């Protein structure tokens, strides 16, 4: 629903980078790999947290 605060595997804080990642790689047209390198998200455990995330708040909020 919301981006996980930390990486499930190593415990690194990844939520911190979500909005910038979203703006640059999802909504923008930058290469996600380069954005992640730039943000300092190095390990693949942390990278998959951002790459595979989908925000669902907009999907569920009409049913409150």
């Amino acid at each position, binding site marked *: *629903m*919301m*981006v996980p*605060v*930390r990486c499930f595997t*190593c*415990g*690194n*804080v990844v*939520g*911190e*980078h*979500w*909005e910038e990642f979203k703006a640059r790689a999802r909504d923008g047209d930058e290469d996600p790999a380069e954005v992640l390198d730039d943000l300092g998200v190095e*390990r693949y455990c942390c990278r998959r947290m951002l790459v595979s995330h989908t*925000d669902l*708040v907009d999907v*569920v*909020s009409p049913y*409150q």
Partner: protein
Amino acid sequence: MTEEYDVEFVEREDRKARFLVRGVTPAFANGIRRAMIADVPTMAIDTVRFVENSSVMFDEQLALRLGLVPLTTPPEGEFTEDDTVTLSIDVEGPATAYSGDLVSSDDLVQPADENVPIIELKDDQRLEAEADAVLNRGKDHAKHQGGVAVGYRHLQRVEVGDDVPEFEEQERRIVRGVIEEDGELVPTSEFDHDLTNRYPGKEVRVEDVPNAFVFHVETDGSFTVDELVTRAVDSIEARAIELEEAVQL
């Protein structure tokens, strides 16, 4: 252990460092690693009292998210394990509540990262809560784990041998970590982790340097790497003293 050991930094930043330790046994190196992960107390939110939560997430989901936000941990001795620090958050939609919106009652305990989204609030939704942060160890909950991805490798030494026969295709020799060359430390990233880039056309032999370990340490922002390592070592010392006293007749 009466032998001397020395420490040399390869890379040093606030939240991330690599350093070489010489003269420790594999068991002691692993002891330091484990202490950094499980035995250094950090502050984290543990109890949350919700005044209002009309967001799309349940109270307990938000409490978990708040707990996982790293908080700066005061110097050793400043707090004991029973002390609590109260933090409050009050955000009204449409807006996103961030970790930076947490207001702490103590200057020493602040969110280490301010940009972690806690919950997105729509029109007429509101989050108001009061949270108690406590000091605890990584052993009890991962949110109290100050060291992230802590590990070590042997320092390696490369022996350069004869030339490779002229018409033989040379295979890649991948090494990761840090190698020692004439007393100088070279991170393998300098030659793309491939020894054939550094010694083209040469036979190479790689061997571990005994009792020399290169640690890679990152923290979640609760404190600096220096703090984490010294506190981990202090905790080993404290337990060793406790054991010594316990077995004395």
